[in-house]
C-alpha cells in the first residue's frame, strides 16, 4: 500500500497538439497528432480522444500512415526509434531501432520496405534526409541500421520536404534555394532565388514546400507571403515558375488536395486560402480561424482538411470549407498573466486563453469548456502590434463576481488600463458587465483580490498598483427612480510612503487586509481601514503574501525576492520564523492549513508543503520540474481521498496543479502508473457487430437457410465436415489480426492439418445426445413458482447442425486430432 502511494508528477492535460502536421486515417474517421512523447488518436466526428499511443521515450517528431496497410501507423521520435502501431486497438506492433535522433518521418507507397527520416549526424545543425530499410522480422524489436543517404544540408522542419508525383522526386527547400532529387536518375537539381538581385524584398526565403500528387508541379511558400509554383524543373535551364500572392505575411504551410485540383495555404492571417486550379483568380477563403495556421493536412479520402493552429488547436474542415470540429488543447499561445484560478461555480480551471479571452478548462474531462470574451475587440493578428492584454482576473463571492483588468502599454508613459467587474446573472446563466472603470490606477495593477469571507455583507475588492496606492472597491446601491441597480465605487485609497504596492491579501475571515509595499507589509483593519501594523524584514521585495487558514489564521506568510520565507505572528506582531527558500509560487490550500511553496534553484524546482504553525515541512518533493514553475493552484476534490500516510495527507482534500514555463500543466498523483494508464489504454471489450445495411437482413436470412440446408444434407449423408468456426487453428488464423500473425509458411502445415478429417464420424452421433442431456438438466433446474427459465445457448439462432458442432468438447477434439494425425493416406490417393 505504501509502495503504491508514491507521489509522482504527472502531466494532466492540455498537452501540445500543434507540433507537427496532423494525419488523417484512410477513412477520415480518425485523426492522429503528436503530443509530447505520445501520439493521440482523435475521432474527427466527436472530437474525443480515442487512444493515446504511448511507448516513445522522447518527443515524437513524426507520424505517417503505413502505405501498405492503412490500419497501421508509423511514428518516429527523438529517442531514435520508429514504431509501428495498430491505431484501432492502440497496440504497439513493432519497434525499429535506428539509433540516432529522428526529426521527421516520410513514407512512400512506392518504397515498400523503407521509410524516409531526417537525421543529423555530424554537426548539430546539418540535417540529412535518409531512407531507412525496415527489415522484416517477426520479433517485436528490430534493429534498422541500413540507412541510405538521399539529400544533404536540408532544413530540419518536415514542412520543407515533400515527395511528389508518386515518389518520382523529392523536393527540399532551405533559405533561398529549392533542391529536387530524382530517384530514378539519382540526380539533384538546384534552383536558387537570388536574394541579392532584389535586395529590397530580400524576404523571399523559402518556408515550406508541397508537391502535386500527380503532376510535376512543386509549390513553395515564402517569407514575403508569395507562393511559387514550379514546373518543368527537369530541365535546369527551362524551368518556370508562377507566383500566387495573397498572404501579406509568411506562408506557414501548403498542401495540395488529394486530386491536386486545389492548393491550400495558410499563415499568420488565420485565413485558410484555397487556390482552385492553381490560379490567382480562383480562390476561396475560410477566415477568422482564431490563430496562426501552422500546419495544413488533407485526408487521403479527400473529404476533410485540417489546420493546426498556434493556440494549440486543430480545426477539422469539410471539403466545402466549413469548420466541422475543433480539437482544442489548453490554449498556450501567449504568456499567462492571470495565473491559475478555479471558478467556484463550474470548478473549472481559469486562465488566459485566446487573446482577450479567459479560458475555462475542465480538469476532470481534460477539455476546454469555453472561452469568455472579456475584451470584446477584434483581434488583429499581425506581427509587432501591441495588443490589449488581459492581465489580471479574480473570482469573488462564490463565483458571483468576476473582476478583470486589461491593459495596453505601448510606451513607458502611455498606459491604457481598464478594470471590468462582471456579475453572474443566474437568470441567463452568464456574466453581465456591471461596472467598467477606466484607469483605476495611474500605473499597472499588481494584485487583485476579493474578500471571500463568508459573512461579509458587501462584496469588497482590493486592487494594488505600482502607483503606490491600493484601492478598496465596494458594491453599493445605485438605484434611482428609473431602475434598481448596484455598482462598484471606490471606498478607500491607501498608501504607504509612496512605495509601490505589490501584493494584497485578505485574511480568511475578511477582518484584515495585508498589503505589501515593496519590502514592507502593512496590515489594515477592513472595517475602518486603519493601518494596524507594519512588518518589515528588509529582506527584499515581497513577492508573495498570504494568510494562514483555519487553525493557523494568526500567521501571515511572505516570500521575498531575496529568497527568504517569513512567517509573522499577527497576535504578537513578531516574526515567528523564517527560512531561506527562493519561493517562486506560494499557494494556500482552501480546505486545510497547508501551504504549498515551489522554490526555484539552478537544477530545478522543488515543492515544499508546510503548515505556518511549524516551520518543518510536511512534505518535500525535489525536482518536480526542470523548468521554471510559473503558477500553481490547489483544486478542491469533489470526493476526498483518504491517504493515511502522513506525507500524503495534504493531498486528501485538494489536488495541487502547477504550470511550467513551457505551459504544461502538471499535478501530483499517488496512483501507480499502471492504474493511471489503464483507462487510456483500455480497449472496448465489446466486439463490433453491425448489420450495417438492410441488405444484410435479406442476405443474412438467405445464408442461414443455406446453412441449414447444407447441414441437413450433411446429416443425410452422414459426412461431417468440420465447419471453420469450430477448429481452433482456423479460428485463430481468421480472427488474429494479419499483422501479428507468424509467417504463412509456419501456419500452412497447421492449417492443412486442421482441415484433415478422420473417416470415422462416430463422435458426431454422440453429440446430440449430449445436448439433450443438458437441456433436460436445465428444465429440471427451472425454479419454483412456474417461472420457467429457458437457457439459450450462445448460438441458439443458428441451425441445429451448427449447434451440434458447437458441442464438440475438448476431449473429442483431441480424439479427432489423433485421427487426423494418423490418417494421411488419402492424400496420396488424390
Amino acid at each position, binding site marked *: 500500500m505504501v509502495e503504491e502511494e508514491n507521489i509522482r508528477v504527472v502531466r494532466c492535460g492540455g498537452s501540445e497538439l500543434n507540433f507537427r502536421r496532423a494525419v488523417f486515417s484512410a477513412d477520415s474517421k480518425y485523426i492522429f497528432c503528436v503530443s509530447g512523447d505520445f501520439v493521440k488518436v482523435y475521432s474527427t466526428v466527436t472530437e474525443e480522444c480515442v487512444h493515446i499511443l504511448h511507448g516513445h521515450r522522447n518527443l515524437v517528431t513524426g507520424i505517417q500512415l503505413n502505405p501498405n496497410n492503412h490500419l497501421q501507423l508509423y511514428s518516429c521520435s527523438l529517442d531514435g526509434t520508429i514504431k509501428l502501431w495498430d491505431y484501432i486497438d492502440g497496440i504497439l506492433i513493432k519497434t525499429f531501432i535506428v539509433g540516432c535522433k529522428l526529426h521527421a518521418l516520410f513514407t512512400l507507397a512506392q518504397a515498400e520496405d523503407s521509410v524516409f527520416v531526417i537525421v543529423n549526424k555530424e554537426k548539430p545543425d546539418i540535417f540529412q534526409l535518409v531512407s531507412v530499410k525496415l527489415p522484416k522480422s517477426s520479433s517485436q524489436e528490430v534493429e534498422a541500421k541500413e540507412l541510405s543517404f538521399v539529400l544533404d544540408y536540408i532544413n530540419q522542419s518536415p514542412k520543407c520536404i515533400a515527395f511528389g508525383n508518386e515518389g518520382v522526386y523529392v523536393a527540399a527547400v532551405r533559405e533561398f534555394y529549392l533542391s529536387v532529387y530524382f530517384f530514378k536518375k539519382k540526380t539533384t537539381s538546384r534552383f536558387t532565388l537570388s536574394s541579392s538581385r532584389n535586395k529590397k524584398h530580400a524576404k523571399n526565403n523559402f518556408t515550406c514546400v508541397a508537391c502535386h500528387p500527380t503532376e510535376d508541379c512543386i509549390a513553395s511558400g515564402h517569407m514575403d507571403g508569395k507562393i511559387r509554383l514550379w514546373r518543368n524543373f527537369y530541365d535546369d535551364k527551362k524551368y518556370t515558375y508562377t507566383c500566387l500572392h495573397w498572404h501579406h505575411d509568411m506562408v506557414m504551410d501548403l498542401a495540395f488536395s488529394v486530386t491536386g485540383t486545389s492548393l491550400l495555404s495558410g499563415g499568420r492571417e488565420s485565413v485558410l486560402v484555397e487556390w482552385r486550379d492553381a490560379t490567382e483568380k480562383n480562390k476561396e477563403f475560410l477566415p477568422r480561424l482564431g490563430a496562426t495556421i501552422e500546419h495544413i493536412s488533407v485526408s487521403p479520402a479527400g473529404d476533410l482538411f485540417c489546420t493546426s493552429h498556434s493556440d494549440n488547436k486543430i480545426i477539422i474542415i469539410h471539403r466545402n470549407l466549413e469548420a466541422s470540429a475543433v480539437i482544442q488543447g489548453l490554449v498556450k499561445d501567449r504568456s499567462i498573466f492571470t495565473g491559475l484560478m478555479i471558478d467556484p461555480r463550474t470548478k473549472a480551471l481559469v486562465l488566459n486563453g485566446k487573446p482577450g479571452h479567459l479560458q475555462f478548462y475542465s480538469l476532470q474531462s481534460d477539455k476546454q469548456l469555453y472561452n469568455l470574451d472579456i475584451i470584446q475587440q477584434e483581434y488583429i493578428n499581425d506581427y509587432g502590434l501591441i495588443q490589449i492584454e488581459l492581465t489580471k482576473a479574480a473570482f469573488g463571492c462564490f463565483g458571483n463576481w468576476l473582476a478583470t483588468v486589461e491593459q495596453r502599454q505601448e510606451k513607458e508613459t502611455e498606459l491604457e488600463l481598464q478594470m471590468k467587474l462582471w456579475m453572474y446573472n443566474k437568470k441567463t446563466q452568464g456574466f453581465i458587465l456591471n461596472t467598467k472603470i477606466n484607469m483605476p490606477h495611474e500605473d499597472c495593477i499588481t494584485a487583485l483580490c476579493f474578500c471571500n469571507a463568508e459573512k461579509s455583507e458587501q462584496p469588497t475588492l482590493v486592487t494594488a498598483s505600482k502607483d503606490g496606492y491600493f484601492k478598496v472597491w465596494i458594491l453599493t446601491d445605485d438605484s434611482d427612480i428609473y431602475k434598481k441597480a448596484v455598482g462598484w465605487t471606490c471606498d478607500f485609497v491607501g498608501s504607504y510612503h509612496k512605495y509601490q504596492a505589490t501584493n494584497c491579501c485578505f485574511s480568511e475571515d475578511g477582518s484584515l487586509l495585508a498589503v505589501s509595499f515593496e519590502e514592507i507589509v502593512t496590515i489594515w483593519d477592513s472595517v475602518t481601514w486603519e493601518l494596524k501594523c507594519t512588518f518589515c524584514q528588509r529582506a527584499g521585495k515581497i513577492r508573495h503574501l498570504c494568510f494562514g487558514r483555519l487553525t493557523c489564521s494568526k500567521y501571515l506568510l511572505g516570500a521575498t525576492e531575496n529568497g527568504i520565507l517569513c512567517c509573522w505572528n499577527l497576535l504578537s506582531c513578531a516574526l515567528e520564523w523564517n527560512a531561506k527558500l527562493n519561493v517562486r509560487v506560494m499557494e494556500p490550500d482552501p480546505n486545510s492549513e497547508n501551504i504549498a511553496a515551489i522554490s526555484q534553484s539552478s537544477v530545478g524546482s522543488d515543492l515544499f508543503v508546510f503548515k505556518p504553525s511549524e516551520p518543518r515541512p510536511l512534505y518535500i518533493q525535489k525536482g518536480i520540474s526542470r523548468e521554471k514553475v510559473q503558477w500553481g493552484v490547489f483544486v478542491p476534490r469533489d470526493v476526498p481521498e483518504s491517504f493515511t500516510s502522513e506525507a500524503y495527507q495534504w493531498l486528501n482534500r485538494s489536488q495541487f496543479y502547477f504550470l511550467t514555463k513551457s505551459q504544461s500543466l502538471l499535478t501530483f498523483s499517488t496512483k501507480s502508473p499502471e492504474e493511471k494508464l489503464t483507462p487510456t*489504454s483500455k480497449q472496448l471489450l465489446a466486439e463490433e457487430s453491425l448489420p450495417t445495411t438492410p441488405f444484410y437482413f435479406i442476405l443474412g436470412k438467405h445464408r442461414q437457410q443455406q446453412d441449414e440446408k447444407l447441414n441437413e444434407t450433411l446429416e443425410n449423408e452422414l459426412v461431417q465436415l468440420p465447419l471453420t468456426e469450430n477448429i481452433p487453428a482456423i479460428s485463430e488464423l481468421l480472427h488474429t489480426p494479419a499483422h501479428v500473425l507468424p509467417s504463412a509458411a509456419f501456419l500452412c502445415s497447421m492449417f492443412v492439418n486442421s482441415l484433415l478429417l478422420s473417416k470415422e464420424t462416430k463422435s458426431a452421433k454422440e453429440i446430440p445426445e449430449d445436448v439433450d442431456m443438458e437441456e433436460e438438466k436445465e428444465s429440471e433446474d427451472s425454479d419454483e413458482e412456474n417461472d420457467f427459465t429457458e437457457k439459450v445457448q450462445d448460438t441458439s439462432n443458428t441451425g441445429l447442425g451448427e449447434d451440434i458442432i458447437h458441442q464438440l468438447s475438448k476431449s473429442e477434439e483431441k480424439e479427432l486430432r489423433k485421427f487426423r494425425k494418423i490418417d494421411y493416406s488419402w492424400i496420396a490417393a488424390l
Partner: protein
Amino acid sequence: MAAGGGGSCDPLAPAGVPCAFSPHSQAYFALASTDGHLRVWETANNRLHQEYVPSAHLSGTCTCLAWAPARLQAKESPQRKKRKSEAVGMSNQTDLLALGTAVGSILLYSTVKGELHSKLISGGHDNRVNCIQWHQDSGCLYSCSDDKHIVEWNVQTCKVKCKWKGDNSSVSSLCISPDGKMLLSAGRTIKLWVLETKEVYRHFTGHATPVSSLMFTTIRPPNESQPFDGITGLYFLSGAVHDRLLNVWQVRSENKEKSAVMSFTVTDEPVYIDLTLSENKEEPVKLAVVCRDGQVHLFEHILNGYCKKPLTSNCTIQIATPGKGKKSTPKPIPILAAGFCSDKMSLLLVYGSWFQPTIERVALNSREPHMCLVRDISNCWAPKVETAITKVRTPVMNSEAKVLVPGIPGHHAAIKPAPPQTEQVESKRKSGGNEVSIEERLGAMDIDTHKKGKEDLQTNSFPVLLTQGLESNDFEMLNKVLQTRNVNLIKKTVLRMPLHTIIPLLQELTKRLQGHPNSAVLMVQWLKCVLTVHASYLSTLPDLVPQLGTLYQLMESRVKTFQKLSHLHGKLILLITQVTASEKTKGATSPGQKAKLVYEEESSEEESDDEIADKDSEDNWDEDEEESESEKDEDVEEEDEDAEGKDEENGEDRDTASEKELNGDSDLDPENESEEE
C-alpha cells in the same frame, strides 16, 4: 401487444423521455428524444456534444438508455512500461451507451467514436425494450421487455447469454444489486433473482400499476450486527406509473414480508430518480425525484426500518421564467432530470425543452423547504452553431453598466470628514441653512414674480434666477443662467450671490463639469469666478474638504494630462512660428505669435491676483485646485476664442501680462527650443 413506435399511446407507459447522466463525474447527459434522435450534451458547458440518428429511428424509437460503466476495460493492457516520468492522466472515459428500442433491438453506441458500435438483435426481444442495466463488473447487459422476458447479453460477443421469462406480463424495470449477484425485476410484482441460477429469491408486491423505476438505496445493511451476505438488509426503492408514492422495500432473510417498509410522497408520477448511496449507518440517503409536473423533490432520510407514514419532501425545486413586465406571469419551466454531483452537495438540473435543455449545477441548501429558481431560457433558442464550434462565450456588455472614469465620484474614494465632532457642527449648520433657505426662497419668489412682471432679463435678475434655480433644482432656469458666456455678467452675478448658495452652486457646477466637455467649458468660467470671489467665505467653512472633495478630484484627474498638452502646445507653436517665419517676413509673424500667446495669458492674469489674496487663507489643496483650474481655463479659452473671436474688454491688458506668462510658461520646454534653434 403491438410493437408500436413510442409508448406515448400506451396509458401505462412511463412518462418522460429516456435520459441519463454518464457515470463518474457526470460529464455527459444523454437524451433520446421522441423524434428518434439521440443527443449527448456536455454538462459542464451546456454544449451539444453530438447527435445521432439511428437508421431505424422512425419505426423503433428509443425507449430506454443506459451508460456502460466506465471501468469496462481490457483485463491486461498491452504494455505496462514502468515509466517514472510523466504519464498522461486521463480521467475515466465513458464510452458505450446502450439504447433499447420499441421494436426490441438494443443498440450500442460509442460516444467516443460517434458511431454505432454494435447491435444486439439475434435471440433477443421481439417487443419493446423497457429497461437496460449494465452489470458493474462482468461486462454483461440485462434487458427486459414487453415480451415478458429478461435477457442477459454478453457484450463481448454481442450474443444472448441467457434468456428467461421474467413475469406473466411485461417486465418494466430492472436493477442490479450492489454486489452484482442479484437482479431485481419488476412487472406486476417485484422479483429478486439470483443471477447465477436465475432463481427467484424474493417477491415483493404493492404497486398497482407497472413499476417504472427500481433502485438500490444502500450498499450495506444499516445494522451491522449480523454478517452481510450481499443482499440481506438492503433497501431498495420503486416508483410506478401514475403513482405518487415511491415505495422503499427491505430485503429480509427471516420473515418473508412482501409489503413496502416505507414510502415517499411526491406531487406527480416520478420521471427521473437519482440518489446518493448511503455507505454507513449515520449517512442519510439523499434522493432527488423529478416528477412529471416538472418539479424536483429532495428527500433526506436515514433508512432504519419500518415507517408507517409516507414521508414528504425536505425540499422542492421549481424553475420559472421571469415574468417580464407586469402583464406576463412567470411560466414554469419543466425539469427533465436531476443528478447528484459526486460531492453530494450539489445537484445537476436539466430543464427546458428536450430539444435544447439547459444544464445547471445548483448547490443544495437543505434548510429551505422550497426553492424557486428564476431562469431566462428565451435566448437558448437562438441557433448556437457558431459558438458550438468556436466555444466562445460573449458576456453581456450593455449600456446599463456603470462606467467610472477618473473624476467621476466613485472612481476615487470620497473624501470624508475625519473627526466626528465636525460632523455635528455640520449638521447643525445644515439645518440652520435650510431654515434660512425657506425664508429666502419666499423672498426670492417675490422678487422673481416682480421681475418677471417686467419681463426683461437684466444682469441683476441673474443672481435671483440662479438662487431660485439652485433651490428648486430647476434645470431650465439654471441653464438659462449658467449658459451665458459673458465674463462680466458672470462676475457680477457671482458677486451678488447670497453666501449660503455658494456651496450648492459649486456642487451644481461640479455636476455639470462631469458632463460633456462642451458644457464644461462654460462651467469653468463660473467656477473660476466663484472661487476667486468667494474664496474667503469658502476658507471659513470647516467642512470644505468633504464638500468639495469631488470637485478637487475631478480637477486633479482632468489636469493630469496638462503637462503633456502644454508640451505639445509649446512644440506646435514653435513649429508653426518657424514655418510661418520661413514663409513670411519677420514682421508679419510676430503679431500672429502674440495672438497665440494671448490665450494663455488671459486667465493667469486674473489668477495671479487671486492667488495672492487666497494664499494665506486657503489650504494647500485649494491652491492646487486653483492653479490647475486656471491652467485648464487656458486650454478651454483657446478653443473658445478660436471659435468665436475675441473678448474686446480684456484684450488690452492681456498683452502686457502675456509677457510675464510667456517667460513662466516657456520654462516647460527649454530643451525643445534649444533643439529647434
